[in-house]
Structure formats: C-alpha cells, structure tokens
C-alpha cells in the first residue's frame, strides 16, 4: 500500500478505484432498467388486463363484428348496473336490468342519462365486467363509453350499447354483469 502520490503510472489502488467506478456505473444500468420496467408495466398491465379480463376491464374501442356463428345451444344472462360518481349531476341508469343472449348474436340495450342541473355537464362512462373471465368475451360494437358525453341542462339522452357475447366464452359463465361508472369530467 505504499503509494507515491506523484507517481505518473497509475498504482494498483488507482487501477482498482477505476475498476470499481466502472462496475458501479454498470450497476446503474440495472437501476435504469428496472425504473423503465416500472413505467413499462403501465401499458403492459393494460394489455394483460384486456387480454385476460383481469380486473374486468374491457376494450375501450369498438370490436370488429367477425363472422361469428350464433350458438343456439345456450343462454347467457347479461345484467346491467350503473353508478354515477360524485360531482356528476346526472341520473343514469340502464333501461333494462338484464337480458338473455345467445352467444354470437348482436344485441342492443339502452341506457338513459338526464342532466338534472342547470349547466352543461360532461362525463365519461367506465365499463367493468364481472366475472373477469367474461370481460374479454363481451364485444362492444357501439358504445357511449368510447367517448366523453356532454348533456345540456335538463337534456335527456338515450344511449345505445350494441354488443355481442363471443361464443368462445367459457361454458361455466352463464351470468355476467356489465357495470358503468359515470365519472364527471370538468
């Protein structure tokens, strides 16, 4: 360990110190990688949710009507419910509480919204399906939840939802619930 500070040639201690710094910087790459991973999890989680129906999330864009055969051998009951979140001065409810559908057959159900305040109020509907396993099989062709909705004071609007239940839906799902939570957006 006898080092002369004025020596031009790097000593073994100096060499080691350089090597240490190098390795330290390499470790920072791992840190950066896992930070990136955390933020990458946001879209990944969304994709995972949409594919697996984890958490009852459904797609937020319209599905394509593929040439699906209607499964005439079984019924699936789809139940509807709604919540209006604090701050949204609307009445909002499904016009029918549940319907029975044949998987593959396109159905239309209506929701009614009324602005009960005396100003323009905008909101966004967030859909959620339970059981989660059914979420990916509820295919929406047209939905008021794809975009924000605004109602004038006192205006009533009937909002249609066109959907079908995919025939691939697991056999044990005979009943499912679609819920809309209507949030206010300022």
């Amino acid at each position, binding site marked *: 360990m006898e080092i002369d500070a004025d020596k031009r040639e790097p000593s073994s*201690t100096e060499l080691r110190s*350089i090597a*240490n710094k190098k390795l330290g910087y390499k470790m920072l790459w791992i*840190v950066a990688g*896992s930070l990136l991973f955390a933020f990458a*999890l946001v879209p990944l989680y969304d994709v995972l949710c949409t594919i697996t129906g984890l958490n*009852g999330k459904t797609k937020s864009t319209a599905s394509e009507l593929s040439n699906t055969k209607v499964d005439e051998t079984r019924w699936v009951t789809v139940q509807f419910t709604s919540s209006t979140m604090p701050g949204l001065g609307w009445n909002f409810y499904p016009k029918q509480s549940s319907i029975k559908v044949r998987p593959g057959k396109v159905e239309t159900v209506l929701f009614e919204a009324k602005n009960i305040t005396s100003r323009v109020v905008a909101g966004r509907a967030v859909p959620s399906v339970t059981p989660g*396993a059914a979420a990916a099989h509820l295919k929406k062709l047209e939905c008021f939840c794809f975009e924000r909705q605004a109602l004038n004071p006192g205006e009533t609007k009937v909002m249609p939802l066109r959907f079908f239940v995919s025939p691939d839906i697991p056999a044990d799902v005979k009943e499912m619930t679609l819920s809309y939570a209507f949030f206010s957006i300022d």
Partner: protein
Amino acid sequence: MSTTTVAHHDEHTDHPTGIMRWLTTTNHKDIGTMYLTFSLIMFLVGGSMILGIRAELFQPGLQLMNPDFFNQLIGVHALIMIFAALMPAATGFANWMIPLQIGAPDMALPRLNNWGFWLLPPSAILLTLPFALALFGIGDGALATGWTFYPPLSIQGGIGVDFAIFAVHLLGISSVLGSINIIVTLFNMRAPGMTFMKMPMFAWGWLITAFLLIATIPVLAGAVTMLLTDRHFGTHFFDAAGGGDPIMFQHLFWFFGHPEVYILLLPVWGFIPQILQTFSRKPMYGYKAQVYSFWAIGALSVVVWAHHFFTAGLPVPALLYFMYSTMAISLPLAVLFFCWIKTMWRGSMSFETPMLFTVGWIILFGIGGLTGLVLADVAADAQYHNSYFVVAHFHYTLFAGGIMGIMAGVYYWLPKMTGHMYNEKLGQLHFWLTAISFNLTFIPQFFLGLAGMPRRIPDYALQFAEFNMISSIAAFVLGLSQLIFVYNIISTVRGGKKATDQVWEGAEGLEWTLSSPPPYHSFSEQPTVK
C-alpha cells in the same frame, strides 16, 4: 485520483476531527457507525409512535387522539421502522463488517458511501415534518394512508402524502447507492484467494439483498412518482375516470414490497449462522445449501407479490399461481432452518447474549414463517387479510425476524467495534424482557385477528377489549426494555472491560484477526485466504 490522495494523506496526518470528521468521512467504519446510530434513533422514534397507538388502543373509546392522527401514526411508524430503522441497521453492519470479513481496506466507492448515508437524515425529516407543520396549522398532518400509499385514498390525502413520496425517493436513492457500493465491493475487493463460495454468509446475504434492492426500489420509486403526477399533474395512472386502475398500484407496490421483506431478512440470515457457529464452536452446516437457498428465495421473492391482495379480486388461475408460488418459499426456508439447527446439533453451546437472541430469533421467526405459510392459502386469507392476524404475523417476521436478529448482531459485533465488552447481565435481561413482552404483545393479536378485528382501526368493539389491553401493556414493557439496550450500547462505547481480538472463544473469520477495535484503516496489508 483525489480520493486516493486524501486517503493516502490520512494515513500520515490522521483524519479530520469533530463534526467535519462525520460530515465528510469516507471511512467505512465511520459511515457504518453513523448508519447504526441513525437506525437506533429512528427505532426509538418509530417505537414511540406505536406506543401512542397502543395507548389509544388500550381500551375501547377514543381517549388520546382523533382517527386521522391515528392513521398518520400507523403509516409513519411503518415507513420509519422499515426504511429508517431496519434497512439502515443492515447497511450499517454491511459497511462495518463486509470490508473486515472479505479482507478489504475499505468499501469500493467511499465517496458514494458518504452520500448514501447523508440522504437519510433529510428523508427522516421529510417523513416527520408534516406532524410539526400541522401544529402550526399548515397542512393536515403526515401521510394517513398506511405505509402502502394505496390510491385513491393517497390521491385524496393532504401534503403528508407528498412529503412521504419525496422521503421514499430519497430513501430509495440512498439504498440504491448503498447497494451498488456493496455489490462493487463484493465483486472487486475480496482478498486474494477468497472466492465467492468462500465468502462469509453475511456477505452472501447482502449480495442478494443488494441485487434485490437495485431491481425493485426503482419500481417503488416509479409507482410513487406516478402517484405524485396523479395528485398534481392530471395524469390518470390509478384513476378509473381516466382509464387507469387503482389495483395497478398494488401490483407495482408489492412488486417492490414483497422482495423488501427479504431485503430486510437476508442480511440477518447471513450473520445468524455465523453467530451460531461461534457459540456452538463448530463450523456451520450446509454452507452451499444455504447459499443456494438464498438465491432461490431471492428469485422467488419477485414472483409472488399478489399474495398481498388476494381479496382484491384476481382471476382463479392467478390466485392459484400466487398461492402455490408463495408456498414454495417455504422449501428453501426449510433448508435454512435445517442448516441452522444442524449447526447447533452436537456442538458445544454457550449462551451469551448474541446466542440467546439468535436462538430466540429462530423460534420466533419460525412462528412468523409458519403463519406465513397458512396465510398463503387464498380461501383462509379472505379472513386473515387486513385483520390483526396479519399484523401479528408480520411483526413476527419483521420485529422478531428482523430487529431481534439485528440485536443479536449488535451484541455479537459490539465488542469488536468498540473494543469493550458490553454488560452481559444487562444484555441477558434485555433479551428476556424483549422476548417475553414481544410474545405477550403479539400472541393476543393473532386471536384478535381470528375473532375479526380489522387492522388500522382507531377504536374497536368491546369484544376485543381484553386482548387489546394485554397487548398494550406488553407493548409498553417491550418499548421500555429497549432503553436497557440503548444504555448498554452507550456504556459499552464509553468504556468497560477490554475485549480481546477474537472476542468470542469460537469466533472465526477475518474480522476477528484484527484488533478490537480495528485500526482506522483496516487491512492495509490485504490478507490472503487459503
């Protein structure tokens, strides 16, 4: 290389003294001492907070505080105990002992080491400042969401949440810096001849901890950053209204949070076998098996996170996967327990304070581990989840498994660090008081949980009264017993019987070849390991 030059001059001119010595030090022992002191102080701060809680829960009805203040105390207690007491204690030992154990002159990145420590005091201030601000009418107090920060509650919360988020950022940076330093030290600074498979267990435990830390702390940092932008900058990561999902926070949080448990425990699992072999006077059993178990546990710890929120509504395949993978952690743990007991088996044991703490640790940590195995069962977890059963369980793993382990380490190494023997009688008294009052505090909580008392409630139905009263009384005994510990440490630092270099009859390893206390610069001549 200015660092080298300074270090070089130090050897001749001696290091700066007074406050500047501590502010600017790059010496691994000084930094280790600062970490350990900080940890002890914060242990007392976090402990007093929970004594406030236990005083409130002593009997039904609100007597001392409003529910909001109660919620602030529980969350800050947890953050302080985990981030400011347990983690710095382990880092303190790493700084002190790893260079001694692997025959290195110092830590690999001494300046970084200094920064890593000095981030801690500001973050402790950030955590507790909102309490003081609230007294002056600024804000509504500290973080009141529990240490888990779950949104949307944390999005609703006041400035305490922001302070806690910044504190977590600083604490995270500090741990990452500390970890990088430890990894580099272990990779580059081992004495000639010390291969990885000859490293002391403590070094192994820390190596895996350090990797877990740099892999998971950034995920926590990311999650709380998203929370911050949700709160103030209009993002919707965790807000259903904007297409986000509050449950995603739980995934991110526990992706860090579960490995965190092993981050706290692995360093302890490192020095426990060293203490066992010292006081059993025979080499530890199954070194390789223990190292491989460490790896297995480290790997498993990052793939089991969702067992912290089984009741959040996960699909059945996910429930089954997380249940079985969680149960799988018990396999390497069983190997570790076997090795620890086999190390004692047919040894020649004596029971000085470190050994007492270690034996007590094995038993109590065993209870924590076994109840964890039961908690892995999804169906029963619906009952245990967020009840006092869980509170009791994780205090068996983190107080018994963490803090009592650290205490074993303190008694084991204190003579080496200070050059004085601690007061053995007081040490033993401290152990017995701690072990008994700990059990009396937390065993009633198992039953409270089974009977249906949820955690984090400031007041409770009368059916829970008796157990809460027992638990509160025992908690105060437990808290006050720690003053013996503090007194014992202070008087050992100030004087006492001279410790020999080997200190313990059965101690083996490089750190025991140095003088007690070791010279300011250890191993100026690097030893060679055969």
